[in-house]
């Protein structure tokens, strides 16, 4: 499905004008912030190419994507991350690739984005709370990094660890979750071509509240599986204990594939509100990516492995 033939172009040539308009609107409030955000940010990301992923979707606005976030490291309300994430320092940033692999390496974030060609993919994102968005991500397939690291035969799972630093992430002063935030995927899920390591949205560097400088995007799973502000990617033999699963195992499973038929114990998952829309829409199995990912779970009891 990915159109690899599209030529490389610079971000400003492709991002829809309306998006920039929205962004301008959003930043108008603070001129200083606008200057600060636009100058170094555009320079930091190498050129990237557009792909066919999600071309038929209409993305949410920059404002929606950057002001309505779940990122408990900065507070538990949706507005908190946009307000509080200023204390995060996404540079310098090191991502340690380690564990059961032949070539562990501590990657500087900028080396990483240079080593792996960036592409834009428009994905749907479904939150476990029953809302969804469409987001134009900028990133590269996690599989590329995994191949480079050469996992050993013992590597069955991949664990993702978010930064733990109460100075940068004030929400970590409260034990809402057992910090640091840990997420995990089975190795085949992690290697799946849909699985992305994202460093930007809308052709810009990832805003802090969206998980700067690097985050996971697994579009067929509920949003919380897509760990943000990652510092460690670790190959492990045993299924990792993930943050939400540890907090409430009966509510948040390890797999957490989007599934309209398996309700959250306290609310229905049959429908979702696409942010910006008035009517709710039906939630699709695997968030509509079933064609590509259903075979990963062939024969599994999805009610048991929810």
């Amino acid at each position, binding site marked *: 499905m990915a159109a690899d033939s599209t030529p490389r172009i610079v971000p400003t040539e492709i991002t829809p004008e309306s998006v920039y308009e929205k962004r301008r609107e959003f930043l108008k409030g603070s001129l200083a912030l606008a200057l600060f955000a636009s100058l170094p940010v555009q320079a930091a990301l190498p050129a990237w190419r557009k792909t066919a992923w999600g071309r038929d979707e209409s993305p949410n606005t920059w*404002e929606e994507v950057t002001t309505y976030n779940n990122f408990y490291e900065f507070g538990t309300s949706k507005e908190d991350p946009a307000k509080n994430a200023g204390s995060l320092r996404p540079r310098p940033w090191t991502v340690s690739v380690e564990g059961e692999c032949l070539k562990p390496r501590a990657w500087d974030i900028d080396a990483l984005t240079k080593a792996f060609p960036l592409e834009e993919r428009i994905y749907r994102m479904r939150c476990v709370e029953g809302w969804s968005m469409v987001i134009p991500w900028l990133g590269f397939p996690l599989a590329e990094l995994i191949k480079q690291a050469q996992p050993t035969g013992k590597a069955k799972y991949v664990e993702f660890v978010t930064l733990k630093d109460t100075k940068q992430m004030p929400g970590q002063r409260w034990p809402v979750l057992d910090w640091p935030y840990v997420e995990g995927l089975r190795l085949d899920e992690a290697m799946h071509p849909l699985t992305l390591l994202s460093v930007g949205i809308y052709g810009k560097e990832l805003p802090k509240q969206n998980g700067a400088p690097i985050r996971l995007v697994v579009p067929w799973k509920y949003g919380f599986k897509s760990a943000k502000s990652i510092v460690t990617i670790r190959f492990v033999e045993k299924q990792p204990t993930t943050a939400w699963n540890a907090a409430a195992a009966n509510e948040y499973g390890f797999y957490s594939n989007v599934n309209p038929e398996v309700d959250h114990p306290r609310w229905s998952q049959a429908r979702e509100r696409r942010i910006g829309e008035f009517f709710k829409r039906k939630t699709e199995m695997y968030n509509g990516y079933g064609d590509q990912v259903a075979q990963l779970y062939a024969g599994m009891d999805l009610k048991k492995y929810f």
Partner: protein
Amino acid sequence: MRPVETGVMAAKDMAFRPVAAPFWSRLSPRTLKVLLFVVCLVPLARLFVLGFSHGLGANPIEFVTRSLGTWTLSFLLITLAITPLRRFTGQGQWLRYRRMLGLFAFFYGMLHLTTYLWLDQFFDWGDILKDIYKRPFITFGMTAFLLLVPLAVTSNDRSVRALKRNWARLHKLVYPAAILAVLHYYWLVKLDVTQPVIYASVLSLLLGLRVWWWWQKRVPAAKAGNAVAPALASRGRQG
């Protein structure tokens, strides 16, 4: 002439010493009630203002539903605070506003329920019934609301007169309604229970006071009853 003046001053002082005379003590009860009525509409007006000024955030429907829920609960707690206020200030005038405040709780509850039925479920009655039956948080919210219905219906002078003592008995339903409302809140949050716990604490305080008063009233009665107890006990020992 002089002594008379001081005498008047002294009488005034005595009358007002317990509470500093606030500006509204000079307004008539009727004006006060109208003022309070308008103040009670501010949370609703705020939603309209935010709605027209693009201020409801990325998920306006959620914002409105939650705001209305929060105000329903707040009005319930404010209503429950009237009796303690009356007792602590020794001023019966608080009671004048209690029924109106309770009706506002019902009013916001009705709007809250409407946003759920309409904007959340779009009147899909099958799904709504399933929700009420399957989701504890909806079950609790719905029960709380239904308990408020008879109270709202009887919040008029005619009902007070007609029901006599039963009116007060009936209106004790506000206690379970408030408890269920707090449980409703507690059950719907994902993980961070700070807010519902704050509301639960306020409610516990308000209900705790009533238990305490009830106990205080009971104790003298119990003491009187105790006089019989030794006699009973000694009789027991005798076989």
